[in-house]
């Protein structure tokens, strides 16, 4: 890496030396201020360019150039220009155009052209603000360090602004982390103030002027790079946006050489683990809930959460500290309230959600955002503030039939500057919401209906097979048995009535009503026994009931006996009253009968119970 970049540099110098092309157009940069911030792993370059049109024709495009080794690592570029009045700024997003061939710009330079808001006519000035973020430009040197060594990185840049235009005045300041600075290229007008390195100002530079500088310094920043990040954003119209993020994180700093000693790491973390990072901070949207943090073998218990009304901060600690070259994998998931992210406009709904990872200072080499819309969404379109690769998929989730449309957005080399909102527009009618609950309800309904039909319906294949006939007969027997039972129960009930009439007698002494009651019960019982007869006959004739019929007969016989006994008792009591015998006398007379009645009744109960068991 190191060698190749040096070769690059030489080539570039050679190319510049050979370059004799005159100024690109008549534009002149009257003032260039460049600030490079390398306190994190991302080199952020912000430039203020004051452009003056010194030519005669109006110009509508502006060319931005970077040395190729920087341009290849350009992750983010935005150009804005501040209009003179007020502080209102408009942001213009430029298109990257490579024009090296046609215009004779050497290969070792990356070229981007900026379309100006309005053609710059002669003598006009325009101030452009350029923000660019580069990844991988801080090269670790040495490339492999032991656990105890400090982490040194190297930055290559040009002290003079590389531009196809002539520059009248320019200055460069590099903001270094507040730590050791190993070395830096010393040119004229070089100043080191604290952690800020200043080159310039340099005046009246030719176009394509270039003077390479190298700064070698210690970096304590986490060189956390997600090799692969898949963000799945699932919209549920029941009120939730579920975000699931799968990270493959690697430490892209100098690789660890030799042993890793936990002892050294714990006892002297500062020198003996300075190149490692333990934490990552994720700044989630406010009102994020149900946050989880796990990997493919389970929950990771080392995380902390702080939340207030403005933001939710999740401090996550991977399972092990990451040294240079170490990798890990984890998943973060959280739910967001739908109302914060879903809006309606012109008959459409749109989801307005941030594009990149919520983890601070994380570079993502390959980011895939999958927006899963509810089943039945139509007319899907996406607007993004920068170019991404788009495609659509179908995902099947809980009880889906048609599947949910998924918008897949892909972008390489994503830096935190890309954390801007994207809008996914779609049409969705609320009726679709009810489809799944209705499906469940009807599913259960059908299940129960089938159960009912199954238990009620007759599914035997052959209606004439002996087993089937036997079953039919058996059912009949059971039905008869039930009838017999109910008749006996009725008999017993009439017996109770008889007893009740006796009690009434003892209370009121009304003999006539008592006699009438006996008569009515008598006829009732006769009717019942008449009813019993055909049933008994059936039971006797049926072969299946052969083992039951004797019991039933016994039952009927017992019932008859009981009836007789009761009648006898009744007559005795009534007679006793008629003769005005004393209560005690009557009781003595019926005592033996009473005993028998109770045993008989008991036996009948037992028999009924037995039949019941069948």
């Amino acid at each position: 890496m190191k060698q190749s970049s040096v070769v690059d540099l030489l080539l570039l110098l050679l190319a510049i030396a050979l370059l004799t092309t005159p100024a690109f157009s008549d534009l002149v940069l009257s003032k260039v201020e460049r600030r490079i911030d390398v306190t994190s792993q991302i080199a952020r370059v912000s430039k203020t360019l004051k452009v003056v049109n010194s030519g005669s024709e109006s110009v509508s495009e502006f060319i931005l150039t970077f040395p190729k080794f920087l341009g290849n690592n350009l992750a983010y570029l935005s150009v804005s220009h501040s209009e003179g009045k007020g502080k209102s700024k408009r942001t213009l997003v430029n298109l990257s155009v490579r024009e090296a061939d046609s215009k004779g710009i050497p290969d070792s330079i990356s070229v981007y052209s900026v379309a100006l808001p309005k053609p710059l006519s002669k003598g006009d000035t325009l101030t452009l603000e350029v923000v660019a973020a580069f990844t991988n430009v801080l090269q670790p040197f040495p490339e492999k360090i032991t656990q105890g060594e400090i982490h040194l990185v190297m930055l290559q840049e040009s002290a003079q602004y590389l531009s196809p235009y002539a520059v009248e005045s320019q200055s460069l300041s590099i903001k270094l982390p507040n730590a050791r600075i190993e070395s830096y290229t010393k040119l004229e007008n070089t100043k080191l103030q604290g952690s800020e390195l200043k080159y310039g100002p340099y005046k009246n530079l030719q176009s394509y002027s270039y003077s390479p500088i190298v700064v070698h310094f210690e970096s304590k920043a986490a060189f956390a790079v997600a090799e692969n990040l898949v963000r799945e954003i699932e919209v549920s119209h029941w009120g939730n946006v579920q975000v699931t993020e799968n990270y493959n994180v690697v430490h892209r700093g100098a690789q660890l050489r030799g042993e890793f000693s936990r002892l050294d790491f714990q006892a002297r973390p500062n020198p003996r683990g300075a190149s490692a990072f333990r934490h990552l901070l994720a700044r989630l949207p406010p009102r994020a809930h149900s946050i989880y943090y796990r990997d493919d073998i389970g929950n990771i218990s080392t995380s902390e959460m702080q939340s207030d009304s403005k933001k939710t901060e999740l401090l996550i600690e991977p399972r092990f500290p990451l040294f240079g070259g170490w990798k890990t994998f984890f998943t973060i998931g959280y739910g967001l309230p739908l109302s914060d992210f879903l809006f309606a406009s012109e008959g459409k709904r749109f989801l307005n959600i941030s594009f990149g990872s919520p983890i601070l200072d994380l570079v993502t080499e390959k980011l895939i955002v999958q927006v899963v819309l509810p089943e039945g969404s139509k007319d899907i379109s996406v607007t993004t503030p920068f170019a991404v690769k788009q495609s659509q998929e179908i995902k099947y989730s809980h009880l889906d039939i048609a599947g949910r449309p998924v918008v897949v957005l892909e972008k390489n080399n994503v830096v935190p500057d890309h954390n801007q909102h994207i809008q996914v527009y779609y049409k969705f009618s609320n009726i679709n919401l009810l489809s799944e609950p209705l499906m469940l309800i009807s599913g259960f309904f059908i299940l129960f209906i089938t159960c009912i039909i199954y238990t009620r319906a007759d599914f035997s294949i052959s209606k004439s097979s002996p087993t089937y006939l036997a079953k039919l007969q058996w059912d009949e027997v059971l039905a008869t048995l039930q009838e017999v039972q109910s008749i006996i129960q009725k008999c017993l009930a009439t017996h109770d009535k008889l007893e009740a009439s006796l009690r009434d007698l003892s209370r009121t002494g009304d003999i006539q009503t008592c006699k009438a009651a006996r008569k009515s019960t008598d006829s009732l019982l006769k009717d019942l026994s008449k009813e019993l007869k055909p049933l008994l006959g059936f039971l006797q004739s049926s072969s299946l009931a052969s083992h039951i019929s004797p019991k039933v007969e016994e039952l009927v016989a017992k019932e008859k006996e009981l009836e007789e006994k009761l009648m006898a008792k009744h007559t005795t009591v009534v007679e006793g009253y008629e003769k005005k015998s004393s209560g005690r006398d009557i009781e003595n007379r019926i005592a033996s009968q009473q005993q028998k009645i109770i045993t008989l009744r008991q036996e009948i109960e037992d028999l009924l119970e037995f039949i019941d068991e069948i």
Partner: protein
Amino acid sequence: MAALESPLPGTPTAMRNAFGNVLSVLILVLIGVLAFSIRLFSVIKYESVIHEFDPYFNYRVTQFLSKNGIYEFWNWFDDRTWYPLGRVIGGTVYPGLTLTAGTIWWGLNSLNIPLSVETVCVFTAPVFSAFASWATYLLTKEVKGSGAGLAAAALLAMVPSYISRSVAGSYDNEAVAIFALIFTFYLYIKTLNTGSLFYATLNALAYFYMVCSWGGYTFIINLIPMHVLLCIVTGRYSPRLYIAYAPLVVLGTLLAALVPVVGFNAVLTSEHFASFLVFIIIHVVALVYYIKGILSPKMFKVAVTLVVSIGMVVCFIVVAILVALVASSPTGGWSGRSLSLLDPTYASKYIPIIASVSEHQPPTWPSYFMDINVLAFLVPAGIIACFSPLSDASSFVVLYIVMSVYFSGVMVRLMLVLAPAACIMSGIALSQAFDVFTGSIKYQLGATSNSTDDAEDNTSTNNAPKDDAAASKTDKGEEIVKERSSKKGKKKEREPADKPSVKAKIKKKALVLPLEASIVALLLLIMLGAFYVIHCVWAAAEAYSAPSIVLTSQSRDGLHVFDDFRESYAWLSHNTDVDDKVASWWDYGYQTTAMANRTVIVDNNTWNNTHIATVGTAMSSPEKAAWEIFNSLDVKYVLVVFGGLIGYPSDDINKFLWMVRIGGGVFPHIKEADYLRDGQYRIDSEATPTMLNSLMYKLSYYRFVETDGKGYDRVRRTEIGKKHFKLTHFEEVFTSHHWMVRLYKLKPPRNRIRGKAKKLKSKTSSGLSSKSAKKNPWV
């Protein structure tokens, strides 16, 4: 219940039955919910994760199955374990659990319910324990009616012994096997009670599922023949018995032979001989009964003498051949684990690898109380209840409990087989007791409320002395009453306000307990039940929910989590090459392959003793010899588990003696005595030099002394013997946060050309740096 009192006069029993059925179904559903939810403590307290060791293997197999399909699964040769031998997974694993979970996963996913394989695996065990409690209901219902069934199901839903193997995440064979076991028994009893060939076929299928699920199927194939034999001997032979047994043996054996891991063992090993022997006997008996039916008694007697004399000779010959066949195989045709069941000292004498597993040790008495709790006291009552009318079904349950008590006494692990039996027995006991007490109370209350009826009063007072006598007989008295009223009692429970006629009925039985005694006894029973529930919930929440890969400790400043195992497995998984081989003691083999996806040398399958002994030898050898062994096995990393810093007792140093023993069993130059000082295992300054120079000691305690300056080991509660030493052939690459897992990398071999001469020099010069400087002279 109120509805019961005023139904249409014609159909009170039908209504009562319908209501009872609905109530039973509702109770069963609730029992299922209870069984499922009591096992979720592990998910709530910890997380939804696979537990322990074996479940990780099953999980990995299920993942493979769900990814590659069933045919790939049968042919799966796993090259990531037992390196360089590999293992044929499809043919050596009981596939029941995996196929079950795989099917559930597939079914859910085809319904577009995207559950991960892990989730399905985690919740398989709780789901199946709900099934198991329903199966218990069915089985007990066949034996003693549905009241006992419900009680038994409720008890089984939360018996700690079963919970210990089926909490959410405990994805092991036993999780489904216990269900299969109970269900097979149920179908056997059902066939025995009905004589239906349909149930006999189902029984064979259930047995097939059991064979698929667990090696414990041999328990079934020995218990059922024993019961059949018992029935024949006690003169209870019936065609129903024949139908229950003969199809099971024929179909069951054929089906069992289809399972690759069993195969021809289903007819070749001694575990199955009992079933064949009984199969022959039952045919002979069936023939005898048949002949008896067609011959006159006199002719029959003649025939018996004739046949017996010839039959004896034939039997003798057959038995002699069998014995000769069995004797010709070295272990007598028994597998090691089965043998250690018959002879509890067998394993410790001959197979240290079986003895080294803690769950193969005999249990202690407290573990009975821990695992089945109050059931231990209820079981005898249940046994008595089973005897009072001894039926085919109840004799089976009695036999089941007797056998399982014996087996659980030999191996802790088989406590699991005892648990269902204990639950069934206790369910019977409880339901009978409740019958009696509630029956008595109902009668007494009815008697007092209807006191206007003098006659009734008289009889009840007459009964009082008898009741006292019955009560004084305590348990036994209860049981007698129970069996009398057993059938009616269940209904009575559900209709306390019965018709007044019921009173009279009970009066006739004349075995009614006094009101106060019944109430007190009921309260005591309820207290017993409450105690059981409390214990079970405690056991489920505290004792059996820890996933063992995550440890927690409660300290003053809150909960502390020790997640070291997964930390280092994650490190291995992400920061080593995918084909690197990791050597560790076999306990961690399954976890390493499943969580870190790295090739291991030995794992928990322990099928190759020599290979395990090789690793044991390496761990017991000095550094250089160990390096050579590991290098010959192509090992890149060595993983040791060390608990000395935080006091985690089941670490490798504590397991070290087993490594020495198993290693020494194959490689005689490793002698256990060399590692013991006067028969004592110690690691302090008194330890033997062999011990202090062994690789395990060095890897465990490398730079340990620098943590506190003394090297105090919190597990062994002593200062370590050798404090300052350096490793020459290994380098530390990772140590987890609490030092529980330490990973070392084998250093590349030294250059040979100048090695010999320099070695002497380098010994004099101190420090690693000079050595490493000479390590590679070409740079």
